[in-house]
């Protein structure tokens, strides 16, 4: 999984161009700055927050790319979840770090299934989750999942009854080590097999799971009343 042999050949930063050493020095400077900012935080740092503290003309993508390359194969890696970046220990070193492990409440099988359905089918309503599982979803299951911070209520489906739609959060990506939803295991195969369709019959294509902050065309934002009724933080707060 991690190729330690490669590690030694990565200079800092990766890009070494003799012809343009001034640019290079500037890049080094910005790489240091981003490194310090991301390293200082235990939570993923948003690209927005990074950009705010760098000079205006900095190509943040390039800087992050350098840093990511530079740390690949190391004991600590730079990882992305959504638009947020964090340093995380390399997965293969877990055995060394059992002391740091936090004993987490384990999710029930039902909760895990619901979580997977929300992640792969989002935005998805409770009725659709139930249709897939063929069983009623208890309120407790969704509550436990909301409590983990991995799912959030997104809005309301533009449909009779205006059911609440659920989706995953950036914390979900961070926790499961996913840079983005496209990285969900087996996503392409499931999509290819037409298994990400909530509706029967299966004769139309279904979009990728969508955790875009923006609501889809079929979703309405929460109203103030909703927020009160559902005991919600603003949806982005999830």
């Amino acid at each position: 999984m991690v190729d330690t042999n490669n590690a030694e050949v990565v200079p800092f930063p990766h890009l070494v161009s003799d012809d343009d050493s001034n640019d290079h020095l500037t890049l080094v400077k910005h790489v240091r700055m981003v490194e310090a900012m991301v390293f200082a935080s235990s939570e993923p740092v948003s690209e927005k927050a990074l950009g705010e503290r760098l000079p205006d003309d900095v190509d943040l993508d390039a800087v992050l790319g350098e840093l990511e390359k530079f740390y690949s194969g190391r004991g600590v890696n730079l990882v992305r979840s959504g638009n947020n970046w964090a340093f995380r220990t390399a997965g293969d070193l877990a055995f060394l770090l059992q002391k740091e492990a936090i004993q987490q409440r384990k999710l029930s099988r039902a909760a895990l299934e619901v979580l997977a359905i929300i992640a792969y089918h989002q935005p998805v309503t409770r009725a659709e989750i139930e249709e897939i599982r063929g069983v009623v979803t208890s309120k407790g299951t969704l509550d436990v999942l909301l409590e983990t911070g991995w799912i959030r209520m997104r809005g309301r489906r533009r449909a009779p009854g205006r059911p609440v739609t659920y989706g995953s959060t950036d914390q979900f990506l961070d926790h499961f080590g996913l840079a983005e939803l496209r990285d969900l295991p087996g996503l392409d195969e499931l999509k290819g097999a037409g298994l990400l369709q909530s509706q029967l019959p299966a004769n139309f294509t279904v979009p990728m799971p969508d955790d875009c902050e923006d609501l889809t065309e079929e979703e309405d934002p929460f109203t103030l009343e909703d927020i009160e009724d559902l005991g919600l933080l603003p949806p982005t707060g999830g």
Partner: protein
Amino acid sequence: MADKDEKMTGSGQPVADIQDDLWSATAPVDRAIADPEFTIDVDGFEGPLDLLLSLARTQKVDLAKISILHLAEQYLGFIEEVRRLRLELAADYLVMAAWLAFLKSKLLLPEPEGDDEPTGEELAAQLAFRLKRLEAMREAASQLVNRDRLTRDVFARGMPEPIIVQKRSEFSATLYDLLTAYAAERQRQSVSFVHIARRSVWSLQDARIILTRLIGNISDWAPLNSFLVEYLVEPEMRTSVLASSFAASLELVREGKLEVQQSAIFAPLYVRSTVPRAVPQTTVGVQ
């Protein structure tokens, strides 16, 4: 795929054979937080679809090639067994049983002509799709849960360095606020400035005390004004001082403590303290 061994513990013994058969090939998975509201967990199954999926696995073939007819028969047999043992069974299971019985008949009997309803094959395909989809989601959940997970397999910085927050005040006020405050203030003061100044006066009492003190035992005639020089400096006080001291002097004369004389009308007024004398002077009335 997930193992249901844990679910099966303590569940209905009569079906244990079938279940052992069902789950023997599967790997264990954790299942700690029991969902408190599982109502249909009669034998550890999460609903009829879950039961169907479990039964399908006994066919030991790809779900795509499964015989739905055979599956329906298995399910109906299972339900029959449960009912024979008088075990409680939630309504969904019975609804599914009824639907499968209907499906079975559709699959076995020739389709009536000109029927708009879905054919038995179509219904069977739909059921197969749902089973496949449920199994796919279970597989996805298990892959998800086995990823390198934060705080279990990968770790964040253990000693994060906090952002130091420096507080700074920013004041807000608009020109309108400023002008409103100024105008209101000036307006208010312009009204209260039209006040009547308190006039300073010498009371009779003040004059009497001062005259008594100043004239004291002086027995030579001296102009009354000479005693009052320092009090007459301020022009606005002059009238009050003169009037009060004149009135006070008359009172002192009446009491026999003072003598007063004046040579002519509007002439200076002379005063002296009363002392025993052999030759009394003429006392002159005063204008």
